[in-house]
Every structure is written in C-alpha cells, then in structure tokens.
C-alpha cells in the first residue's frame, strides 16, 4: 500500500478540488438557509404591524381612498347643516309664514306674521 506524505495528500486534494471541511457553525447556517427557502418568511416590519392592518402599507392606500369616498358621499351640503323644516301647520289665524335659513350664523327661523294667538293682539 502506497502511503504518501501529508504534503502529497494535500497536493492531491487540491488537484481534485475537493471542498474543504465545513465547520459546525457554517454547516448549521447553510442548512438553515436551505430549509428557510422552503418556508414563507415574514419581514420584521410585517410581523410587527400585522395586528393593526391599517398601518400596513398594503392597506393604507385602499383605506384612505375608502375614507375619502365615504367622506365625499356623506359630507353634508351647507343647508343640510341647519335644521330642516319637514312640515308646518299654523292653527291660529295669520297672514303668512316665512322660513329663513341662515348659513352664516347657522340656524333656521320660522316667522309667522299677523299671528293671533288668543291674547287679542296680532301683528
């Protein structure tokens, strides 16, 4: 049996391009990376924000758009911000009814002219 020296063995290995022995740490890391490629990995940011989806960038734009549309649809007109008169009946004798809507000082005024309310006065 031909036994070469260590130098001859090393030279032979270099010629064959035999990979060097991996350390235990390197072996573990490479195995871990290899296994990790088969599993979906979440980023740290995704994991931290997943409990509050609105902060997730994927949902910020749709949520903002939905709020904007809802706001535009539900935003009341200036006259809708004041009290609306649905019906009005005056039982006592009177001349006319004036309904004024003040948008500057928000409010509604119902004024009945020449109203006789039973005290004998009208005006």
């Amino acid at each position, binding site marked *: 049996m031909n036994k070469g020296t260590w130098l001859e063995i090393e030279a032979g290995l270099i010629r064959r391009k035999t990979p060097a022995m991996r350390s235990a740490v390197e072996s573990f890391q490479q195995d871990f990376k290899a296994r990790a490629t088969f599993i979906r990995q979440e980023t740290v940011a995704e994991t931290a924000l997943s409990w509050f989806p609105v902060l997730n960038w994927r949902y910020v734009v749709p949520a903002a758009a939905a709020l904007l549309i809802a706001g535009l649809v539900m935003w009341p007109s200036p006259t809708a911000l004041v009290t609306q008169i649905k019906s009005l009946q005056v039982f006592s004798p009177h001349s006319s009814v004036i309904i004024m809507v003040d948008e500057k000082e928000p409010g509604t005024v119902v004024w009945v002219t020449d*109203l006789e309310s039973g005290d004998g006065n009208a005006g």
Partner: protein
Amino acid sequence: MNVNLKIILFLGMMLSAGAAFAGSTLSIRLVEASNAGQGMGTGLGDVAHLLQNNLPYKTFQLLASRSMSLPASSAASLSAGIVARCSGGQDNMHVILERGGKKIMQTTVELRDGTPLIIGGISSGQGKLIVVLLAK
C-alpha cells in the same frame, strides 16, 4: 382575524363615533322681542347674532328656559301661557306650541346639533314671543 374584516370594523367604528356625537339634550327658551330699548338679555349669547341678523327687533329678553333629554317626549311649560310639547328624536321631532291650552302651531323638524330653530311671531303685549329650540 381576516384583514378585510378588520378594515371594515375600523371604518364602522369611525362612522359610529360620528353618530355618537349626536346631541342628548334639547333646550327650549322663550324670548320676548321688542323695539322698546336695545340689548340682548342674559342667556341668549349663543343665538344673539342669529336673532339680531334675521329679526327686525332691537331688544331680546329671555323669559323662560327649560330642557329635556332626547329623544323628547314631554311638555315644557314656559311663560306667558306658552307650552311646547316635543316628541321624537332629532331626525324627526314633532313640536307643538300651545298658548292657554290652545294649539297655535305644530311642526316636524330635523334638528341639527348646535344649530337653533327659532319659531316666532306669537303676539305679546310689548312685541313678539319667540321659541328657541336647540339640541346639544
């Protein structure tokens, strides 16, 4: 929990929060308007501009003030024989004004928070009586 469900719940909470700010109290005030003198009585500061800008009177004096919880279902006896009977919520409130037990007028209104409704023209010795309704 499904992410879409979370978004829907969030939007629902936003909308319900707005509804939660609806008024819970209805205040009813009786005011006498006249041209005898000039000035605004105490207790009318929040409606002073509305009264002065829209009615041809110089003096406004608070005669009575009452309040009731909303939705309303009671009568407020004011002054000068005026009684205001209110029923229903802000979206569909029925108001009946009586004087001396006699019905003067009735109206159905959609009352907005903080925006007063002024019903006036009831004759008075000095001028006119005005009822101010305000939900807040």
